[in-house]
């Protein structure tokens, strides 16, 4: 295994589900162990990463605004997220009297389940991926829609006009921007010739798609990053929450643990979008390779794939935070105009350009 990691020639893909399936033939307990590892690992990863991201976001935001951010709990406020999580757990759980109790209870669960479903197919390194579906890209788009179902249900079941308005905005925003996200995903699918995330990563052995696909790749990346920020309901597209107009948008009525589910889902979704961006455009865990330069490539291979993945994802996460704390917020009509009048045509043209490029093999290192 380790040798495989060190020699760049072949990255053996071994997902947790594969291992469980292999083990099932010999020893069912081992298979159960792998399944538990996948479940527990995903759960632990979800909560730890959520807390870490919240801390980082607060620190980055503070320094963007000439502040210091959390400083009191632990060294430079490192333990602030844990303190906040403990506080959230102790909070009173309020359910509005006129709410639709069942849906009110289910909505945050839907949100978090969608997040977990998307998380499990992210290839973090050749040996660190829970399942590797052959329809990975489609799967990601599909479960993304599941997440917005949670938001819509939250808005509807709260029986509150702000929640409903926020939820409807979220729905409209998601439906609109999902098209652009899918169009940019399709560009990479065309270039890589596969829907399977691990194969898309493997296809970038000679160079990442953002520069192998030159103009098309860059345009697709920008369309992807703009529209996935919009899908995540992050500022500058935070209309569903819109603190200034809708108090809290779809989660106005939520408190305590249920609210923390939405909050956690939002931050993990940011990670997923960044990880997806890194996987599709920056080669995922694939080290930085330039086709043909063997020495250079093997030096790059010395850095483990997990680190490459973490670094690229962190870069995109930082980009999203940077945008969030810099850009002015959009109005609802401007939001729709940006999507339908700008991003959508650009996305379509880009897709045609990508198809042309693939047919004529105009991208870099087409031979290999």
């Amino acid at each position: 295994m380790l040798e495989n990691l060190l020699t760049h020639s072949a990255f053996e893909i071994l997902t947790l589900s594969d291992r469980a399936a292999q083990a099932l033939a010999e020893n069912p307990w081992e298979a159960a162990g792998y399944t538990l590892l996948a479940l527990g690992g995903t759960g632990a990863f979800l909560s730890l990463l959520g807390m870490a991201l919240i801390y980082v976001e607060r620190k980055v935001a503070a320094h963007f605004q000439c502040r210091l951010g959390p400083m009191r709990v632990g060294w430079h406020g490192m333990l602030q997220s844990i303190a906040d999580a403990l506080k959230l757990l102790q909070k009173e759980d309020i359910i509005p009297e006129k709410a639709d109790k069942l849906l009110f209870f289910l909505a945050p669960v839907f949100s978090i389940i969608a997040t977990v479903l998307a998380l499990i197919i992210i290839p973090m390194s050749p040996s660190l991926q829970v399942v590797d579906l052959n329809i990975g890209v489609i799967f990601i788009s599909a479960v993304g829609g599941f997440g917005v179902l949670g938001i819509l249900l939250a808005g509807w079941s709260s029986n509150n006009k702000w929640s409903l308005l926020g939820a409807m905005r979220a729905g409209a925003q998601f439906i609109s921007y999902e098209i652009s996200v899918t169009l940019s995903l399709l560009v990479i699918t065309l270039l890589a010739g596969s829907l399977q995330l691990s194969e898309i990563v493997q296809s970038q052995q000679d160079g990442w798609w953002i520069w192998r696909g030159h103009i098309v790749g860059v345009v697709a990346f920008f369309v992807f990053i703009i529209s996935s920020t919009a899908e995540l309901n992050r500022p500058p597209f935070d209309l569903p929450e819109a603190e200034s107009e809708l108090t809290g948008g779809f989660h106005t009525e939520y408190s305590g643990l249920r609210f923390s589910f939405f909050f956690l889902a939002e931050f993990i979704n940011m990670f997923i979008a960044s990880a997806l961006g890194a996987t599709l455009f920056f080669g995922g865990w694939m080290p930085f390779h330039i086709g043909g330069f063997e020495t250079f490539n093997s030096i790059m291979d010395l850095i483990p794939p997990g680190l490459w993945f973490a670094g690229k994802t962190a870069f995109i996460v930082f980009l999203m935070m940077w945008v969030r704390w810099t850009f002015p917020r959009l109005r609802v009509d401007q939001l729709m105009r940006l999507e339908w009048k700008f991003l959508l045509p650009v996305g379509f043209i880009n897709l045609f350009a990508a198809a042309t490029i693939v047919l004529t093999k105009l991208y870099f290192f087409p031979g290999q």
Partner: protein
Amino acid sequence: MGYIDTKKSTKAKVTTVGNTPINVVIAPRSPSGADSESLLTTIFKSVKSLFVGMKVTIGYLVRPSTVVTQQYPENRETLKMFDRFRGQLRLIKDENNYMNCNGCNFCEIACPNGSIVITDQRNPVNEKLELERFLWRLDSCTFCNACLQACPHDALEWSDGFEAAVYDRRLLVYTLNDYAGPPVKAINRAKKKEDRVEELLATMEPRKQYGGPVPLAGRKMPGVPALETENTKDNASPKHK
């Protein structure tokens, strides 16, 4: 949509209001066709301005020296307030602790909400009016700075003290002068003429921070301890004004 185009040169002209000349800047407006600038120009301009914004914020991020917030209780010893910070009103004193204020009352008149009450007395030695008590109510002061601007003798300043919270609202009424008596100018004049200096200085009486007419007259009440005030004859209405 008319906006002020700061890039274009501004013209200035002088008008007079009453007798005061006032500089008026005529801001150039964009021509009414500004909205019809081409779509590409608009896009280019907007994208460029977004990147300018990103450059500004990353500048703040990479330079921790730009942080303006203070870690207050920790750096209490070293905390330096800013030049224009308005903490608490204070009378300026020279090295001998003589004050500039001569009780001219201008600040009391200037104060928009009666936060200053000045009491004067006539000095028996040089027969001049002088400050007897400078009463300042922090609880009603709006820190508008009008008193400082009104003072013709440069006698007032703002201190850095911002820890003004107290447990009893009577403690928010301060006597700012620590003595009732001649201001530094009168003392200097007497010294110059060598005219009854000792006698003049002997007329100075001490004043405590909490003295004079404080709310509830400094009385003890259930749950409120008595306030230490000086001679309570001061609590009566001013002697002369």
